[in-house]
């Protein structure tokens, strides 16, 4: 069974603030860390600039990966927002999930004053929710 994904309150807030600022567009980013514990959040641009899809700029992805390598961290998470829908992977999310070792975090702004984050593993089209633990800083 996959481990519960762990991040700090301030790290969750970075993602939530980015989602609220980007609303109604979807936002996205990458998470560095080790195992299931987040160390650093890397907000990235959504080059689709869309309300219903996201795509990261490969050049930005490469830059983050280089930073992770330099800091001896791994890519452990990929996150994006769903401005109007639940924090569940869509068929598009599942089809385009190419990182079986990463946790996929989705931030739902369905209730704007009460954002919800959930974490999943997506492996060969199979989705499993892993649980998410937000710790005090």
């Amino acid at each position, binding site marked *: 069974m996959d481990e519960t994904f762990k991040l700090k309150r301030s790290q969750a807030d970075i993602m939530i603030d980015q989602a609220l600022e980007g609303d109604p567009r979807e936002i996205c980013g990458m998470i560095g860390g080790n195992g299931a514990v987040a160390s650093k959040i890397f907000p990235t641009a959504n080059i689709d600039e869309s309300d219903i*899809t996201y*795509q990261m700029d490969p050049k930005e992805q490469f830059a983050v990966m280089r930073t992770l390598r330099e800091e001896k961290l791994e890519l452990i998470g990929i996150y994006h927002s769903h401005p109007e829908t639940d924090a569940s992977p869509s068929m598009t999310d599942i089809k385009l999930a190419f990182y079986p070792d990463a946790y996929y975090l989705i931030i739902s702004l369905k209730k704007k004053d009460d954002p919800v984050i959930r974490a999943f593993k997506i492996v060969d089209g199979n989705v499993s929710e892993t649980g998410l633990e937000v710790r005090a800083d």
Partner: protein
Amino acid sequence: MGGSGWDVDVKINGDKESLADGTTIEDILKARDVRPEMVAVEVNGELIQKGEYPSRILIKGDQMDFLFYMAGGRLV
């Protein structure tokens, strides 16, 4: 992977590797069972166009990085 058999020392995603002389980006992706349309490739920090994958040969000291696209959304 074709070539005349000389080892070519490169780095792929940060790891040292020795390749046969003449190895292309496409060869490297195929050897890893990676479909070219799913990835972006950089060599020495330069983004490589997909059309060049079959012809771009890595040479000694090259650093190749590839990564899968990160995309999705609530579209469907």
